């Protein structure tokens, strides 16, 4: 180290044929090309594998299904006493349940809980392709309906009328009977929100296209993304839980601070 430094210090700058940063730039260019090529390659393969109609994908999905899902859903997805039939539930249902980590189920309970995702995107797509190949059902949504660029005001109104009684007006979630609950919808992808509406996972009802049109679903997603991306104008939202959180806050922190101050103000000076 010291040797190199002294050598460089001795040699006059003008005799150098390359700029000192040239090697860094060279490495950067090299990385960019390799990375770019890799990304291009991998996306092209991803597109190839998610091609739902491909027989190869379906076969891969069938293998995954037999290994991970068949215990409860049956070898031919016909269902068993432990789990419902998956014939006709569609690719959207698989993408939601597996893509949010709800399936494979960790344990039987009031309802499947969200947890870290067990499969890669590719594997999830293969499973979805297999289940979709069994019978027609809701497909995985894509395109404009997921762009969250619809009418937030109309979406908010639809959300209040159709969704808020379980999910809370701000999407903070709410309780149902017997330990079931409607989960919070913050940080859920537009695709999963859409899929939940068309497939009705767990205790949620199905909102089909006759019920809420794709355009209306897009508006609802627009509203939810608006709430997610725009923090509350009033300050910290206290979980958007309403008066209970506010009451708890004023008793513990508000009145707590005030009582601490009363003790301070009446303390005897030293």
């Amino acid at each position, binding site marked *: 180290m010291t040797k190199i430094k002294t050598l460089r210090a001795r040699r006059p700058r003008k005799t150098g044929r390359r700029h000192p940063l040239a090697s860094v730039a060279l490495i950067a260019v090299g990385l960019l090309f390799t990375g770019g090529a890799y990304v291009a390659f991998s996306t092209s393969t991803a597109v190839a594998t998610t091609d739902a109609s491909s027989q190869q994908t379906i076969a891969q999905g069938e293998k995954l299904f037999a290994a991970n899902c068949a215990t409860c859903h049956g070898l031919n997805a016909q269902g068993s006493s432990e789990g419902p039939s998956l014939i006709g539930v569609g690719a959207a249902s698989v993408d939601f349940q597996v893509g949010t980590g709800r399936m494979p189920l960790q344990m039987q309970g*009031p309802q499947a809980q969200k947890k870290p995702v067990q499969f890669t995107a590719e594997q999830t797509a293969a499973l979805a392709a297999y289940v979709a190949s069994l019978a027609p059902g809701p497909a995985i949504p894509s395109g404009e309906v997921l762009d969250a660029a619809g009418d*937030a*005001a109309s*979406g*908010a*109104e639809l959300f*209040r*009328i159709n969704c*808020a*009684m*379980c*999910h*809370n*007006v*701000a999407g*903070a*979630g*709410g*309780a*149902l*009977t*017997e*330990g079931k*609950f*409607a989960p919070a919808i913050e940080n859920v992808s537009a695709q999963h929100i859409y899929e939940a509406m068309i497939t009705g996972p767990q205790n949620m009802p199905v909102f089909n296209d006759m019920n809420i049109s794709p355009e209306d679903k897009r508006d609802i997603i627009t*509203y939810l993304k*608006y*709430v997610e991306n725009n923090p*509350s*104008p*009033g*300050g*910290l*939202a*206290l979980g*958007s*839980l*309403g*008066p*209970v*959180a*506010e*009451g*708890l*806050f*004023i*008793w513990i*922190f*508000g*009145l707590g*601070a*005030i*009582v601490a*101050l*009363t*003790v301070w*103000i*009446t303390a005897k000076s030293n």
Partner: protein
Amino acid sequence: MTTLTTRDTADDQSVGAKKSGGFTASAANYIDERTSISGAVKELGRKIFPDHWSFLLGEVALYSFVIILLSGSFLTFFYQASMAEVVYEGSYAPLKGIPMSVAMSSTMDISFDIRGGLLMRQVHHWAALLFVAAIGLHMLRIYFTGAFRKPRELNWVIGFILFILAMAEGFTGYSLPDDLLSGNGLRIIDGLIKGIPVVGTWVSFLLFGGEFPGTDIVGRLYSLHILLLPAIIVALIAMHLLFIVVHKHTQYPAAGHTNENVVGYPVLPVYAAKAGGFFFIVFGVVMLIASLFTINPIWNYGPYDPSPVSAGTQPDWYIGFADGAMRLIPTGWEFVWLNHTYSLNILVVLVVVGLFIVTVMVYPFIEAWITGDKREHHVLDRPRNAPTRTAIGAAGVTFYASLWAAASSDIMATHFHLTMEGVIHTLQVTTLLGPFLAFFITKRVCLALQKKDREIVLHGYESGRIVRLPGGEFVEVHQPVDEYERWKLVSYSDFKPLMLRPNAQGKIGAAEKVRAGLSRWFFEDRITPVTQTELSRAHGDHPAEITEK
């Protein structure tokens, strides 16, 4: 410094005004010659207030009320109490183009388009929550120290009415934005009223000007909220404070504190400065909370529409106990008689909550009747020295807290991963049995603490030092308690159960029997304060002094 004054004797020390004091003196003289105010200043300025943190809780309530008045006046400049329908065209995108009432639209404008409006709304609402919470804590302090005893029973009633009025103010204010949450709250009130047999429907139609929700209610609530209720509250606060001046402040038992004096600071200058400064501290805390934390985000709730109800719909905390009581009633409590449905699920709540409120309000009179105590009390009780009263208070707190907790049953279910039914059933049990359990535990704890106090007075603290006497006996040296501490430990009044005595006609009435029974229940288990005789006897066989020397 600590000042001691004698009750009911005017302090003849003159207020120090210099003769040749320049402008201040001549201005004071000018005012005094025209108003004779020096008499009042002399009287009030030398008023003594004892210093204890719990004596400031009422002040917190008063200051919150002042903050509410200030921020509320700002809000009235912009709020319009009308239920006429308009289309919202303000700044908040997710409500643009949505039809709503003028009340909601003007509240949205206050929140988004008027400078400082949202801050003032949040100051108003947070201060309102603090107002009722401070009243609640103040009431608990008064109750558990026995400050409601003669001569302060009427002031307790005034204070309690203020508490009810504060809740009414809160509820009427909560309903003014005409948003979804408050509309749902009004719908519950409407249901409660309609559940009253015979008159319910008539009263509801009278209140709402026809079928719910109608177009009148917001305007009516506004009149109550900014005119009638505040006027009554201000008048009652004035009476409440006047009574404090008339009665003089209570004080905790301590050396030199008696029923005939007040030990503390005079109002001028120290106490006034402290109290005045404290107003700004409370204002600062409310401002800080309001600027950092959202309250009542009406933009999320949207305008009122009778069809949607949001998950997690609750009233503000002070109405929570009533909401919780409704949630705890088992399903199906109603019957049909003569072609009319009688909703016990509503009537039972109205009766139980109503009885609870009335009982708390008249408690001072009940206790006075049971104890037969007609003396004035200016020295407070330490809660342990009134075991039955403290136990009744603990039972009441448990009952209220169970109802209160029930109002958040859904939030508890989701956040602690419980079933809603489990939460409700548990709270049903704690509502019914919890008060009894709390009563017995509290009473035993109080008696145990009294025993401990007695032990300390008689024998001092255990020092852990074992000494062998010349005769060969081993004794532990006890550290005697100092005189100041002893004063606190022994100075409380001892009660015995009332004796049943025949009246002038030589008869014993039923009321007297009830009273004697209650008195026995109150005072049967008691630890008497240490007497002078006991004390000197205890010191006689005390080896501490001998061995120390």
